[in-house]
């Protein structure tokens, strides 16, 4: 189940009111934290079990999922003004682009 599905699954009338007011309800927050805990558990499993060539892509995907869920729901960015998103994602995209270029320039991938 995706984090979005977890967040949506506990909606009722009361939740919707609170959701509109604060972006996240108590139940949603706990469900999302449980989802993040499960994802972290899978990450740690890659240390104990040999996932072979899948380990690195899996870890990167899980890291991105956790990052996105915390930013979207715990930091409320999904419910906020686009300007906040532009400021944060702008910095993030710039950082990723600059440092991927730097890593490439220093021959990190070879």
């Amino acid at each position, binding site marked *: 189940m995706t984090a979005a599905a977890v967040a949506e699954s506990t909606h009722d009338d009361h939740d919707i009111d609170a959701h509109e007011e604060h972006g996240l309800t108590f139940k949603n927050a706990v469900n999302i934290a449980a989802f993040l805990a499960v994802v*972290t558990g899978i990450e740690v499993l890659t240390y104990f079990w040999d996932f072979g060539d899948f380990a690195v892509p899996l*870890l990167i995907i899980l890291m991105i999922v956790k990052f996105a869920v915390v930013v979207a729901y715990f930091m409320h960015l999904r419910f906020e003004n686009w300007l906040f998103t532009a400021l944060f994602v702008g910095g993030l995209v710039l950082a990723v682009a600059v440092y991927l270029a730097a890593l490439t320039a220093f021959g990190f991938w070879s």
Partner: protein
Amino acid sequence: MSDVTAPENELAYGRTEWDDYEHLPTTTGLTHDKLTMWAFLGSECLLFGALISTYLLLRNKPDDLENVGPKASELFDIPFTSVSSFVLLMSSLTMVLAVQAVAKGDNRQTRLWLGTTATFGCIFIAGQVYEFTVFYREGLGYTTNISASAFFTLTGFHGVHVSLGIVMLASLYILSARGRVTQKNAETVEIVGLYWHFVDIVWIVIFAIVYLIP
């Protein structure tokens, strides 16, 4: 047609200046404090991006330089770090609950969750101090080799950020106990919460890239 019109430069019908705006009286309609925090967090991505990529470039470099001491990655205690990572992750949940509590005007719950979040942060820092101490006893100091320098700089910078977050949380706790953090200024707690969640997402990246990816 009504002839009752508000004179220029005066507010009509007893409304306050604040009420006459559908949004906050700023050029963007958003609070400057929150806007500044998001801009700051965007710039922090560049800081931690630099530190992470520096570590990635230098983590296998002891053989090329001083060739002394172990590499940090040889000393990692993944089960221990996993527990401290989990604690920091759960502190994000308690921070959300603190923000929700202050928005509802429940000061007792606000202090409870702020205190819990700060405690989780202290547990994480204690774990980091323990990890650094173990590394040092194993012969890996800050200047042992360039890989160690990159590792301690990255995780140390993150630790300093967490420590600053704990100071902010403790300050909010004390202000709340004195009745100075209420529903009216709930945004202050939300802004500190944004900072706290940011240190959590930075650790999410560090834990995966530095500790788990071989």
